[in-house]
């Protein structure tokens, strides 16, 4: 009897605790999206008659390059994807060709980020084929993807306290990441908030100006702090790997949280290399 009472009690406690937790309102704080990949990712699609990493082609074999582009960013992307090999065009094969692509934004329903994808077939018409190579040779395929990256990065700047703070920024993983440190001082009857913004190139991508997608190491920067005047040098900057920008604002003598938005516009160029082999011509081999 005593045991039954104890068991009943334990079951009650468990059920009520579970119900209690479920009935609690969920905090409105942001939940980070968990994904290991970021930005755009290009991979080769496997298949008969498709180019594969490490494959050996016989001369006269026909093939296509089929590429899958995954977008892990929450903004849509458009750009161009180009292929070429390291052999002279006289032997046929993969000639320089570019084709435009468009890919939708990743889906962020719930806590899981679902990448959007797009498939590109090259050449756009016909197939590739190597001919007349005198000897067996190693070769390389270069795939270059170029697209425009618009990043909007948001954080909350609390003024005046804490006096010094690394701002937590909500940013999707992109070739350029941002960190920001805030300091506060008093200037007359206002607070002066200074924000040191550091742009950091986080992978081997080449940063281009969006104007022509050709000039290297250029990035367009602008920032906004709530509806206050935010004193920054804004515009197009030269940036190789890092760029430091300082912004400041005069704010009321009150504890207030301000939304800070950082806008980055730049072109991204990423190149992937794939090795393969081409056999010598049958006729040459028989001699």
């Amino acid at each position, binding site marked *: *009897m005593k045991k*039954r*009472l104890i068991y*009943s*009690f334990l079951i*009650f*406690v468990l059920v*009520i*605790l579970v*119900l*209690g*937790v479920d*009935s*609690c*309102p969920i*905090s*409105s*704080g*942001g939940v980070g999206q968990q994904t290991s990949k970021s930005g755009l990712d290009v991979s080769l699609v496997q298949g008969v008659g498709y180019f594969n990493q490490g494959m050996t082609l016989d001369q006269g074999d026909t093939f296509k390059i089929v590429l899958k582009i995954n977008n892990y960013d929450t903004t849509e992307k458009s750009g161009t994807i180009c292929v070429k090999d390291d052999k002279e065009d006289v032997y046929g094969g993969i000639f320089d060709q570019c084709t435009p692509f468009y890919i939708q934004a990743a889906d962020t329903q719930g806590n899981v980020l679902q990448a959007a994808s797009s498939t590109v077939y090259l050449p756009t018409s016909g197939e590739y084929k190597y001919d007349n190579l005198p000897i067996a040779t190693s070769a390389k395929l270069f795939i270059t993807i170029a697209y425009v990256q618009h990043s*909007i*990065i*948001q954080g*909350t700047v609390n003024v005046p306290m804490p006096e010094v703070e690394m701002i937590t920024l*909500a940013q999707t993983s992109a070739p350029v990441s941002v960190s920001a440190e805030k300091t506060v001082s008093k200037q007359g009857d206002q607070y002066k908030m200074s924000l040191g913004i550091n742009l950091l190139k986080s992978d081997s991508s080449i940063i281009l100006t969006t104007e022509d997608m050709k000039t290297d190491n250029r990035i367009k920067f602008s920032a*906004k702090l*709530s*509806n*206050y005047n935010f004193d920054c040098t804004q515009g197009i900057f030269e940036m190789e790997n890092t760029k430091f920008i300082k912004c400041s604002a005069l*704010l*009321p*003598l*009150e*504890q*207030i*949280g*301000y*939304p800070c*938005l950082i806008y980055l516009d730049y072109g991204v160029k990423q190149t992937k290399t794939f090795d393969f082999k081409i056999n010598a011509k049958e006729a040459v081999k028989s001699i």
Partner: protein
Amino acid sequence: MKTLLSIQLSFILLLLVLVLGVTGCPQQQQSIENFGGLSATFVSNAPPLNVIINQAFPIYVDINNLGDANVNTNSAKFYLSGIGKNLEGVKASLSNTNLLDKGSSERLDFASAAKSTLELSNPFTLAMLLTSCYKYGGKAQADICIASSNSSKICSISGNKLNSNSAEPIQITSVTEEISGSNLVVSFIISNKGTGEVYLPDSDCDKLQARDINEVLKNGKVKVSIRTPEDFKCKVQSLVAPYSTIETLEGASSLGTVSCEKSILGESDHQAPFQVVLDYVYVGSISQSLVITPS
């Protein structure tokens, strides 16, 4: 019999766990609650917990006088801070437009159509702070024993002599006596039973809100007036800066113990009334979060 007992026990346990479950949830709304004084509460859905950019919404605060003192028209100030230019159409401060006597209430209209025009890419949580600042006071009544020894047959020196307290955030929590040589020492403890901060009664609410250093020096002090037919002298502070120590029946005092002394030479044993009147400015605050979502 045993089964009935088990059912009763289970029912009590269920009730206990339900109560624990409910109290374990985070609070959505806060209010200033004191042993008295003014309570302030954001009205439900004014503001709502979530709004989208350019959506108009109201901000109302209900004020209730839970204490015994009256708050005169326009004498209490209420400040809504933490907003800046993040919201439009919001009044930064308001005063009570009615006399707030015991049990009365008033609704403050900080905004009938506030809105945010912020540029956002993600939801932004705005933390609003409502600060109330008002003059308040009350009194505590005690009957003390004037006697030259601890073994008086008329009255007793020992024990807490406190009889009553007004409903107010600052209260006298004990009145005790002791004989020290030829003197009788009466000590009383001033305690803050509320969640806010106390300042001297001449404090300027606007200056306190602006964190004016001279006003901030008045923090933690109340004006005390001791009313008794006995010739006591109490160790208090001057009511003006630099708040030097004086021995009188009226002055400023920090929260804590105040001691009053009188000679008992030639005194016959008797009881006497001992009243402590408190005056002060009380400052309390509550916060409310508002999540602004991009449209």
